[in-house]
């Protein structure tokens, strides 16, 4: 996911950071299929599928919601992100710097780095559930917030330290393992669902749908402390769990390498393998756990995978978690390093990994992953609206494109207000109980776009008149 979300198995950002990608460096369609398929089959997918069941979703809602939501995500990449990426061919950060100014981009980097840290923390948590299986430690429960024992803390610490050191010193090795592991991981995720379906008592393909409604996604009451999920929750979650990447424009950095904008259809590989099949498989694993051990509501990817696929299943959890945590920690380090460019990248990455490890000790982040992922997208989304409007509509609405670059300001207040006011209003609406967090992203995007247009005209009124 999400992952996920923010994870990247390649690291193209190190190149052409302050210039458009030249013709010779552009990539073919197949490069993007592999990248997206691998990236969205992460360890955290095993958290998300079960959390749908914990939210009392029905079979129709989950299958329909995932199908439509993932389609909307693919279309967002195709028609919002990629057309700008292949025309400008700049990284998100460089393009934002031209629009927003250096200081505002630094603030954006800080927000981005912090969110990456927490996301990496959830990945460390997932891996600790796999590693902890061997040591028989007490694992956290579904509603646990704090670390639940010394064994858990030590396991997370060991996994986090290992991942951090590798992210700092062996990034490329793990990136290569990620590419190698991707096809195998996808099949293991499929295998989880097939095995768990049989363990639930489904004995033929024809029996699947009726029994899925009866045994897996029953559409009953959610578990304690969870919001009830409908088709709309699932659809908006599937669409917006990668909101930072598509309508938030983070994947400008990826698709600037694409020869054609339609290559963004490759994101369908990630969406339908990772965010459809893997999530449904993980759901089936959890449904079997609830059937076999009623009352055991813990969402622990390690034990879930072991019950279905043995050691190979646990290995898949570790590889999937590690290969996505690795670039997530690395990228968080890059975001922080951009704030302090003279710092050693290794030192920054080690520090970032330490923060992610501490975050990973708190199971609340992983157990509330649906909410966290929605928040992650919401924090970064308004800047996507700013980029979209600035690229396509600046001249039409009578203000200057790349205002910070032309004026030399370090903060473009139109972008700053569009970002922070949108975020503040969205969070206020959520906190007041007006809308759940999954639903505020769409109106928030339009609000950010409108604010940016209105305030840009006000800020630039002298230039507009001239």
């Amino acid at each position, binding site marked *: 996911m999400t992952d996920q979300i923010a994870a990247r198995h390649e690291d193209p950002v190190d190149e052409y950071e302050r210039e458009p990608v030249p013709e010779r460096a552009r990539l073919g369609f197949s490069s993007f299929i592999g990248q997206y398929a691998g990236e969205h089959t992460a360890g955290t997918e095993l958290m998300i599928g079960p959390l749908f069941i914990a939210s009392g979703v029905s079979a129709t809602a989950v299958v329909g919601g995932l199908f439509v939501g993932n389609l909307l995500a693919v279309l967002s990449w195709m028609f919002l992100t990629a057309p700008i990426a292949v025309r400008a061919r700049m990284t998100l950060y460089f393009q934002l710097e031209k629009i927003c100014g250096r200081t505002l981009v630094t603030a954006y980097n800080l927000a981005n780095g912090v969110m990456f840290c927490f996301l990496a923390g959830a990945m460390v948590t997932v891996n600790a559930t796999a590693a902890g299986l061997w040591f028989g430690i007490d694992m956290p429960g579904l509603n646990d917030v704090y670390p639940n024992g010394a064994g858990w803390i030590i396991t997370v610490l060991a996994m986090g330290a290992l991942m951090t050191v590798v992210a700092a010193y062996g990034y490329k090795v793990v990136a290569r393992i990620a590419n190698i592991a991707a096809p*195998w991981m996808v099949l293991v995720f499929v295998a989880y669902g097939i*095995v768990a379906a049989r363990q639930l008592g489904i004995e033929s393909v024809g029996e699947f749908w009726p029994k899925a409604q009866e045994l897996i996604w029953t559409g009953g009451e959610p578990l304690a402390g969870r919001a009830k999920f409908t088709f709309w929750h699932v659809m908006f979650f599937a669409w917006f769990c990668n909101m930072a990447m598509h309508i938030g424009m983070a994947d400008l950095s990826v698709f600037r390498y694409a020869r054609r904008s339609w290559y963004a259809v490759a994101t369908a590989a990630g969406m339908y393998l990772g965010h459809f099949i893997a999530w449904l498989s993980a759901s089936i694993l959890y449904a079997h756990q609830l059937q076999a051990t009623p009352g055991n509501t813990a969402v622990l990817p390690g034990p879930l995978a072991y019950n279905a696929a043995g050691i190979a299943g646990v290995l898949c959890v570790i590889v999937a978690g590690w290969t996505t945590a690795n670039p997530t920690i690395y990228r968080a380090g890059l975001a922080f390093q951009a704030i302090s460019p003279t710092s050693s990248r290794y030192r920054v990455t080690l520090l970032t990994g330490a923060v992610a490890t501490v975050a990973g000790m708190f199971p609340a982040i992983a157990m509330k992953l649906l909410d966290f992922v929605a928040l992650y997208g919401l924090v970064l989304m308004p800047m996507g609206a700013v980029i979209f409007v600035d690229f396509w509509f600046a001249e039409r609405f009578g203000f200057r494109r790349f205002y910070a670059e032309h004026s030399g300001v370090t903060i473009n207040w139109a972008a700053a207000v569009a970002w922070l006011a949108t975020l503040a209003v969205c969070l206020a609406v959520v906190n007041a109980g007006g809308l759940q967090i999954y639903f505020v992203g769409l109106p928030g995007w339009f609000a950010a776009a409108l604010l940016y247009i209105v305030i840009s005209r006000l800020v630039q009124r002298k230039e507009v008149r001239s």
Partner: protein
Amino acid sequence: MKHAARAVSIAALAGTIVPPVLFFYGQVGLEPMKAWMLASAVAWFAATPVWMNR
């Protein structure tokens, strides 16, 4: 060498997905299926680096 490694990788992918399908249809037990999946994982990670991304 690369051709042989490729063949092993393809067999390993088959060994990852076919046993769960057989388990689904009741043709193989859970423990043998897990053993096949583990053996296939080992084969995949041993053979694939020989030809992929080099």
